[in-house]
């Protein structure tokens, strides 16, 4: 069944001050209703301050990262959107006309990007409102209905979250995302779902809604145009109680329109963060690595930064392989994000250089890496501490000889054609050398030695038979 899905995504901008007053935005730490003033609580007569310049700059930057055209040299109006709810002290919400238009992200068109203001936090059970959050600037991103399955919707949202995360312009704490989605199935009506708070939630909400609408259409029922709320706990959508028919939108007579000139946009473009999807393309091309590996590397901004720093010093292909497998594995295992690692790119580069020069084996390298993540230090020192100095060839040879001598049965098995015996022997050598030898080298030596002895024995037998 064909379907169309679009999103309206809101995220709090990471500014220090609210949009139209000087109140701080650290609302989570502050006791309820302490980050407030006559302006953000809309006390009678209070007038807004000029909109926070950093908030406007942040929206411009996000618009650029999403490939939008920024509206320049034209008035961008702050509008009042009216609705009656306890979380809204003025009875209206500030919402700008588009700042960015006609963007695109992973094949989904971005209709517009604009600035909004967060309302307070209403607790319907306790009947209380906390206005600390009220007036914090939000970015709203509106897409065209270009997604055609719940999976596509999820993929887009994940990518969008990554872009927002990369920008560093939105609040990093989880739970600041608020998304509304529009879904219409072929032969149905557009339905809006509010109250989505995560990518997972969006996926489930869309999936549920598709099923619900499908069932209705199959029964020949008409889907009414309506606004529904997603209930996270039950993973279902229900009709919303509060229905806003008309926001009575007027231009806010309190605030002069914002006019952005081209120079401001270019300044921001110059210093802005490269968007992850653009970075992925560039990394693949610049370092000659596969798109898939580049995708893994850009999954976190700090990871990609680390990659580029290390790739300057060591063979980028080796670095890429290590990032995709070993580093990602270690970080996942330790539940760490790339921003949380403490070691320097020099230390990692040093480690990889030793792997490249075969001074240590990749397996040993991973051991060192684990240590490095836990307790950053110079890789040389870690290797010494771990006793991972590579064996001299002669020592390895001696270990191999000794292993063969001590394990006659395995040797016989091997010679009888049971190849797995070789692995057993290799393991013994490994143990003997306390992991300091390269497994590939062990196998090479073992095979050679076993062949050699065989030859010798054969020759001896030949002698005897003579």
């Amino acid at each position, binding site marked *: 069944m064909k379907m169309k899905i679009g999103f309206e995504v809101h995220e709090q901008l990471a500014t220090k001050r609210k949009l139209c007053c000087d109140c701080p935005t650290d609302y989570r730490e502050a006791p309820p209703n302490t980050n407030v003033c*006559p302006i953000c609580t809309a*006390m009678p007569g209070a*007038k807004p301050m000029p909109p926070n310049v950093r908030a406007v700059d942040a929206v411009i930057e996000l618009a650029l990262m999403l490939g939008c055209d920024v509206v320049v040299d034209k008035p961008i109006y702050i509008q009042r959107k009216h609705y*009656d709810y306890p979380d809204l002290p003025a*009875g209206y919400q500030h919402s700008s006309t588009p700042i960015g238009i006609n963007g695109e992200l992973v094949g989904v068109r971005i209709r517009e990007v604009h600035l909004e203001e967060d309302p307070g936090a209403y607790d319907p059970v306790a009947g209380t409102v906390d206005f600390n959050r009220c007036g914090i600037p939000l970015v709203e991103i509106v897409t065209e209905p270009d997604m055609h399955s719940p999976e596509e919707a999820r993929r887009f949202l994940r990518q969008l979250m990554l872009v927002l995360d990369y920008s560093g312009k939105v609040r990093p704490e989880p739970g600041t995302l608020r998304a509304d989605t529009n879904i219409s199935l072929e032969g149905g009506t557009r339905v809006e779902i509010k109250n989505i708070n995560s990518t997972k939630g969006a996926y489930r909400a869309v999936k549920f809604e598709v099923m619900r609408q499908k069932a209705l259409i199959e029964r020949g029922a008409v889907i009414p145009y309506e606004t529904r709320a997603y209930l996270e706990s039950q993973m279902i959508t229900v009709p919303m109680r509060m229905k806003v028919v008309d926001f009575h939108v007027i231009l806010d*007579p309190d*605030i002069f329109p914002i006019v952005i000139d081209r120079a401001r946009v270019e300044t921001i473009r110059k210093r802005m963060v490269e968007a992850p999807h653009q970075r992925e393309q560039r990394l693949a091309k610049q370092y000659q690595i596969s798109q898939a590996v580049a995708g893994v590397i850009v999954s976190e901004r700090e990871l990609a930064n680390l990659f580029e720093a290390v790739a300057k010093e060591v063979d980028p292909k080796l670095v890429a392989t290590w990032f995709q497998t070993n580093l990602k594995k270690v970080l996942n295992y330790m539940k760490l994000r790339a921003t949380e690692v403490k070691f320097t790119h020099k230390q990692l580069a040093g480690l990889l250089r030793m792997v490249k020069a075969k001074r240590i084996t990749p397996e040993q390298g991973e051991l060192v890496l684990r240590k490095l993540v836990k307790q950053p230090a110079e890789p040389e020192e870690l290797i010494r501490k771990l006793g991972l100095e590579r064996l001299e060839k002669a020592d390895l040879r001696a270990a191999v000889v000794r292993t063969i001598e001590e394990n006659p049965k395995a040797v016989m098995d091997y010679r009888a054609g049971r190849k797995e015996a070789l692995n057993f022997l290799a393991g013994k050598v490994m143990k003997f050398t306390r992991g300091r030898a390269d497994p590939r080298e062990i196998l090479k030596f073992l095979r050679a030695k076993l062949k050699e002895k065989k030859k010798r024995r054969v020759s001896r037998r030949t002698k005897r038979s003579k």
Partner: protein
Amino acid sequence: MGRGTLEKLKAILQGELSATENVQQALNRIKELDKKIKAFIELNPNALAEAEAIDRKLKRGERVGKLAGLTIGIKSNINVKGLRATCASRTLENYVSPYDAEVIRRVREAGGIIVGMNNMDEFACGSSGETSAFGPTENPAVLGRIPGGSSSGSAAAIAAGMCDLCLGTDTGGAIRNPASHCGVVGIRPTQGLVPAHGLIELAVSFDQIGPLAPDVYGAALMLETIAGHNPNECTSLDSPSANYSDKLGIGIENIRVGTSPKFSELADSAVMEVIDGAVEKLHDLGAEVVEVELPNLEKSLSAYYVIMSAEFFSATRKFDGRKYGRRIEEVCGDEVLRRIKCGDYISRKDQHDRYYKRALQVRTLMRREFGEALNKVDVIVGPTVPKLPHKLGTKLSPAEMYAYDYLTSPISLAGICAGVIKAGEASGIPVGLQVQGKVLGEGTVLRVMRALEAAK
């Protein structure tokens, strides 16, 4: 009382009259007259203490501000910390301001003593002073008639000598209209000259705080105290601070004064007779009188009411009954409710283009029309209100009531300044001359007003 603002100020500065005595006199006068006039809703219990503080400063020879020891009345839609800003409405009956409006901060800094909160039309919705939830205000100049509105209590307090100066607010004429009816001086400043932070809105894009005073000097003094840029406000003009009171007496020789035949079309002949007399006087004083074109003047009234209603609807959404007593629609008077309902309808999505957008176009037209006319002259003079004030209690239709704003609302749409000064009387009722100036043309407007005042 009885002496001019300048003389009063001199007496205080020279120690002939203490600030405390001045405040006490004002309080006595209010006590004596206000049961009848109803110019005040609430008095400032700290007024005397504040006056004593000024007196101590004077005694010690410390610097005091421009308004040192003068008694000031404040319209009840301006926030004065600790006093109730009721807007003369049941909705805000118990709303005690938690903060000072920017103008109040400036008045306090200048040493002005706030004596109390003036009566007004409810939420500034009215042109007669009759819509107050606390009862209508009398016109001290002609008892039994309306004082005009919506700054009714402020104009009446000045006319009755209850305080030295007042702060009123003007949206479509709410300072000028009662100034005219009560025979006092009032100024509507250029849009954005005076900070609006702390003014409880009727219609934000028109609302202006301005002075009401017994004389031009007092109005000039108060205006220069409150005018000037407030960087914390979006719509505050970034203009250099001006001194008006020093340059009042320059005279008006060579000043070009415009008049328009439109005025006599719209105003009653009784009013026009007085106005024409004042224009003649200005001519005698050396001004050159020129006729200017204001072809669309009468279009402004309906445009004003459309924009004002839309903005008023928006501004009153906060009075939802959750924070400030009862929901506005449940307790307000008819006129307030009428404007809320109009605004609700006008700002609907399907009506937006039909009314609001067209009204905004008229606003642009007015701005252009006055701009062009004022390119040819320094000021335009004419009547303030087309009719004489009606008798208190007379039933008027909304349209008749709104018609009082025919000549004041165009200035509000154009965003320029205008002052009102008594031009004379028609059958014993004051008639005010409206002196309309350019953007930031307050200095010239005040000079013309002062010339007329001095010639009396």
